[in-house]
């Protein structure tokens, strides 16, 4: 096909479109949805009984803070990446990666300093919470990103999956009363890694299809 013919075809098929809101506005919308989902899950299942005590423990607070920062920075980076030419900085992605890595690091440090402790290694409830919350919040995020134009679908899909599993893991941490390092590393972090990888494998082709021929 000649380029002139392509231009005519594209022009003929050009229906009016509504410009997308800025990445910041779309980030706020997704965060509102993800926070609402997390709140519903916490209220439906019930927060851990010792939550008032847990929030005074540095390990719990640092771990939760790392998850919240990872969610915010990953989702922000994903929305920025989905708009061609939007102001993006490597710092944003670096922050997302650093905050995500800080989460297991906290629990590895606890394992090294305080030992394994007593408690279950794996709990199906935690895995289900992480999987379901990740799937719903991640699905919504991918749908929102698909409305834009993610020119780097692999990066966008990866950090979108990270945002989804970290928000799900944050909610699960508020619900789960087991604060031992082995449980957190296996029952939460390993499960989140598996769910995140699966989410990436599902989400990446969706984003790729959006911008590739």
């Amino acid at each position, binding site marked *: *096909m*000649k*380029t002139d013919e*392509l*231009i*005519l*075809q*594209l*022009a*003929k*098929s*050009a*229906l*009016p*479109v*509504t*410009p*997308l809101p*800025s990445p910041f506005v779309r980030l706020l919308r997704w965060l509102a949805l993800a926070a609402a989902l997390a709140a519903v899950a916490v209220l439906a299942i019930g927060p851990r009984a010792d939550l008032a005590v847990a929030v005074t423990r540095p390990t719990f607070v640092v771990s939760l803070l790392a998850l919240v920062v990872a969610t915010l920075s990953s989702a922000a980076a994903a929305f920025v990446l*989905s*708009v*061609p*030419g939007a102001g993006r900085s490597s710092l944003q992605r670096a922050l997302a990666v650093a905050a995500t890595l800080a989460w297991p690091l906290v629990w590895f440090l606890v394992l090294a300093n305080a030992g394994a402790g007593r408690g279950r290694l794996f709990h199906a409830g935690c895995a289900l919470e992480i999987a379901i919350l990740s799937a719903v919040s991640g699905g919504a995020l991918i749908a929102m990103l698909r*409305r*834009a*134009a993610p*020119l*780097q679908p692999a990066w966008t899909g990866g950090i979108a999956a990270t945002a989804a599993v970290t928000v799900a893991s944050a909610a699960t941490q508020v619900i789960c009363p087991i604060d031992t390092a082995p449980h957190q590393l296996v029952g939460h972090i390993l499960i989140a890694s598996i769910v995140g990888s699966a989410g990436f494998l599902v989400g990446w082709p969706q984003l790729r*299809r*959006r*911008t*590739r*021929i």
Partner: protein
Amino acid sequence: MTPEQGRQSSEWMQLAQAGDQIAYASLLAMLTSVTRRFARARVGDVGWIDDVVQETLLTIHGARQTYDPARPFAPWFYAIASSRLIDVLRRERRVRSRELADDSLPEASSAPAPDDGIDVQAIHAALASLPARQRDIIEGLKFRDESVRDIAGRTKMTESAVKVTAHRGYRTLRRLLGGPRRED
């Protein structure tokens, strides 16, 4: 892109977002020459510059809702053009790596060629070397009697994208089969 072209592009894109097809055609026509110059400046006068141009136009078409009229046009446009240039460059490298070198082409069969002189083996070899999507579309159009609309529905592509992909496949086949190269 000059500052004047950037300003004009922004205006045309705002009109295009509102459904003005003439402004949109004018914008795409201008971006065609800008993209061609942009690509030539980076990869030289290669035979697939038009692929970069068409990929860029198609991406702009699908991404036009992401242009924010409050922001300059040039960074938005060059992000798309750079991305498509890299994609086409990678694809061309893949295609080249799959092409058979002349000295490894299969020997001509001792059996007499069909009356019409078509070397079926060479056509099959050339088809097999195409990227999967191009091969599927060409086989659909030529061997399975599928229409462009059928293929677009099956592959979830636009009809325009199916035609463009088929066109690129034909061009690669022509090159592989040693036929005359037709420039767009």
